[in-house]
Every structure is written in C-alpha cells, then in structure tokens.
C-alpha cells in the first residue's frame, strides 16, 4: 500500500473509530443509524476499517487481565502527559508523506480563527467536530472553498452546518442582525440552527433564500439557481437588487425544489425527492432513468478523469443507478455492463462509444 493510500486508509480508520465510539455507549438514533448505513454502503473499505477498529477494541477487551492494564498503571502513564502545547497524535513519519494537496487535510492543531480555509476535507464527513474554528461574531467574513472532487463540512459559529460540494465557494458574514451566506459557485447544503432574532439568508445567483429553520440545498447551475428543501421551509425571492412588488418571494417546503433562472420570476416549485438531490452529502450520485449525457456531466463534477461520450446517439441513453462519487472503478464497471456500449479508459479520460 503506497503512502497516499495509507493516508486515505488512516483517515477512514479514524472515521470508523468515530462511528464506533458514537455507537459504543448507547445505540445510534434513527438519523445517525441511517447515516452510518450510508457510510457503510459507500465503500467496502469503510466496512473493512470498521471491522478493524472493532477488532482492536475486542483485543483490548480480551487483554483486560494483563497487569499492564491495571487502573493504577494506566493512570500513572496518563500523568506523564506534559501540560505544554498539544502533542502530535500521529507519528512524525506521517508528516513526511507528501501526497497531493487533495489529501492534505490533517487539521492544524491550534487553528483559533481563520479568515480563509481552502482545503480538502473530503473524508471529514460525519465528523461531529466541536473543535473546528468558530467565526467570531460580528465582523469577520469567512470564506470556504473546495476544489474539483473535494467536499467540505464545516460547523459555523452559530452551530449551523455547512456542507460544500465539489468546486464550490461560499463566503459567510455574521452580524448581530443577520447571518448572510453568499454562494459564489457550486453547491452547498445547510443545516440551520434556528435563531429567532437572527435570520439565516443565502444569496445565490439571482435568488435570495431566507431560512425558516431547516435543511436545504442550493446549487448554481449555469445561469440558474436550484434550491431544494430537505426539511422545514424557506422563502425564496429574487435577489434584493431585483425585488419589487411584482416579485414577491415564494415559500418552499420539504421535498420541493425551485429553479430560479436569471431574470425569470416568479419561479414555480416542483415536487422532488430531496434526499436524492442531496445524495452528494453521502458522496453518492443517484440517477433514475436519466440520459447518459446528464449522468456524465454530473459524474464529471467529481472525477479527475472525465467521461467523454464519443457516439452522439449514446447521449440520450437512459440509465439508472447509485454511485459513489469517488469510486471510478465501480462506475466504469457499470458502463461496461451496458449492452452495446464500449468503454475505453485512458490515463486522462473515460471514453464511451457505441460497440
């Protein structure tokens, strides 16, 4: 296993550790159980590492009679910890490993405030991080960005949670009267902590969204803004500069989506499966009877090796499936299983043509 693979494994193992601990003292609630099941389903490696951390716990459990694990011995060793600056948990060798910046996600130990964060926290899903830096109230504008293929989850100063999809950027400005997020590019999902006195607003393209206590997703797609509500409700209006009496905001409820095209208002909400629209949160993309061209475009948002459809007739080929955004091999295998489709894989792209 090469070093960057090992780094990925180490990150997955730590996540497995987090899940193990979360389930350790009491069973997970329904929502966490679903999240864990989704995590397992994302990759067999997740399951393998979970087995691995379980085995460590089991081995320790079975070694309990060993005198070196007597309460006194354990506590005596714990006291040897210095009071000085935070020690490194990871051995030095891990640092000398230089992978692509993609994986350089190791959290800096004492990041108190940060004006700019631009990192690939790809594997940080579900980490219920309470130690993430919080934005000081009032002044600072925070900016978060992800590169191609990266995702990021960030707890904000008010305990709202921001999930940022691939190739996306937001800036966040909290003041006494308002929490304002501007989606500059890409896609973001929000789990908003309700505050009666301070509205949570998202400005995205030509739309303005005001949260009324909820989870919702916003995506900038070409010239339009797509808003999907997972839970609760939001109001969506044209961005402030375009507001007028004839352009009243509309209300959007759970499992509804609206596409606000530049200049076109009012927009009409449609019913959707919101979990599907936010499958990316579990690093999945879901297609149901959708043309290959659209599937490829969606897939290409994440991959370093884009899909190219060489035979125009194949663009309208309708396919269905659920894929992990980071499991290229599974997707290639799927394409190969389609009748009449030929798939050539080169170092830089995946070429799909008619057989």
């Amino acid at each position, binding site marked *: 296993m090469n070093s960057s693979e090992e780094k990925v494994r180490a990150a997955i193992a730590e996540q497995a*550790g987090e899940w193990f601990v979360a389930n350790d003292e009491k069973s997970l609630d329904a929502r966490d159980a679903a999240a864990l099941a989704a995590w397992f389903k994302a990759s067999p490696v997740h399951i393998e590492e979970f087995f691995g951390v379980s085995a460590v716990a089991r081995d*320790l*459990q079975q070694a309990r009679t060993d005198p070196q694990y007597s309460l006194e011995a354990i506590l005596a060793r714990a006291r040897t910890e210095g009071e000085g600056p935070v020690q490194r948990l990871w051995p030095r060798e891990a640092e000398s490993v230089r992978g692509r910046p993609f994986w350089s996600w190791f959290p800096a130990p004492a990041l108190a405030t940060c004006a700019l964060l631009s990192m690939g926290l790809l594997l940080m899903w579900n980490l219920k991080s309470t*130690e993430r830096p919080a934005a000081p109230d009032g002044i600072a504008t925070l900016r978060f960005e992800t590169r191609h293929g990266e995702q990021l989850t960030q707890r904000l100063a008010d305990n709202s949670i921001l999930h940022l999809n691939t190739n996306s950027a937001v800036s966040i400005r909290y003041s006494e009267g308002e929490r304002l997020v501007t989606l500059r590019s890409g896609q973001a999902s929000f789990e908003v902590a309700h505050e009666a006195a301070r509205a949570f607003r998202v400005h995205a393209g030509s739309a303005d969204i005001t949260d009324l206590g909820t989870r919702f997703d916003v995506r900038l797609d070409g010239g339009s803004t797509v808003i999907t509500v997972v839970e609760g409700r939001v109001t969506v209006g044209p961005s402030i500069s375009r507001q007028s009496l004839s352009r009243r905001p509309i209300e959007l409820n759970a499992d509804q989506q609206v596409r606000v095209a530049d200049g076109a208002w009012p927009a009409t909400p449609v019913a959707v499966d919101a979990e599907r629209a936010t499958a990316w949160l579990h690093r999945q993309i879901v297609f149901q009877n959708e043309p290959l061209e659209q599937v490829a475009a969606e897939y290409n948002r994440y991959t370093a090796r884009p899909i190219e459809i060489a035979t125009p007739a194949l663009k309208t080929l309708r396919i269905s*499936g659920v894929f992990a955004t980071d499991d290229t091999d599974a997707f290639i295998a799927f394409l190969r299983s389609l009748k009449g489709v030929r798939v050539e894989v080169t170092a830089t792209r995946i070429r799909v043509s008619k057989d």
Partner: protein
Amino acid sequence: MACTTMTAAEPKPSLVGRLFAKHRAALQSFFLRRVRTKADAADLAQEVYLRMLRIRDPGAIRNPVSYLYTVAHNLVKENAVLDRRQASGVDIDEMSAQEQLGTLPTFDCDLDATQRAARLRVVLRQLRPKCRAAVELRFTHDLPYREIALHLGVSPQMAKKYVAQALGHCRRRMARMG
C-alpha cells in the same frame, strides 16, 4: 429513441445491485470459500458490502453495527453459510455494544490472541499518554466516557475523541504489521 431499448431503465432500480448482479454468484462463492478457510477482514467486508447494497429499504437496518457483526458472525459459521439468507444464531441486536464485540470473528487467523495482544502493546505505546489511557480505560475497564473524562481531566467529548483516534491509529498500525 433507438438507444433506449439497448438498456432497460428499470422504474425502480435495485441501485448498485445492477452493477453486481452479473457477477454476484461468482463473487459470492469466491468470498464464501475464502471466508470459510480464513476470516479475512477485507473479504468479509466485501461480502457484507454486497449484502448491504441489496437491501432496498435503507431504514431496514435499524442498527448498522449489529447488522455488520451479525452477517460477519454468520458468514464464518458453517451452518449460516449453508443458509445464507438467515441472520440467525445469535441475537446480536439485543446485546450491548461491548458484548457484541465478543461475537466478532477472529480476522487474522495466522495470529493467536497472545501475538495480537503483544502487537497491540507496541502500537499503544505510539499514542500520546492521555489518548492511550482513554482507549485502555474504555475497553479493559469498561469505564463510561464520563468517568474516563474525569480521570483524565478532559471533557467527555474529548474522551470520546481520544478513543476514536486511538482505535483508528491502532487499527492501521496493526494492519500494517500484518
């Protein structure tokens, strides 16, 4: 559209199941053969993974961890292998998380318990002291996180974080020794 006939777009696709449908039988018999002779964590994981993908209703797995252990447990049991669809034998769901660990198969058959314990002692030494103490207190003394936190002078959240990190670290070090 001529090409829509080439592949049937199912109204309700069995998700990634489609992907594996073709090779499922071969894959499974391969995994099961290996699992029977050597409970390799990677093989077991693969087999459990395939099973999970086949579950249409994600809500069906009430307790994902019990599910994982149950399937693993049954896979290495000869009887369960014969009747693969039944997750019976032990009612892992009813056990506490700590008790459930006892049902886990021994993954590395090449190592006996003494050898694994010796290796574990080595990898534990690489942890920083509080982190090491947290994981040891949790599993060799079954102390609740609240008490571990008191002993170490940290918050319960921190105690949990220590244990999670320690588990992940030890797991990888153990794997790399293997």
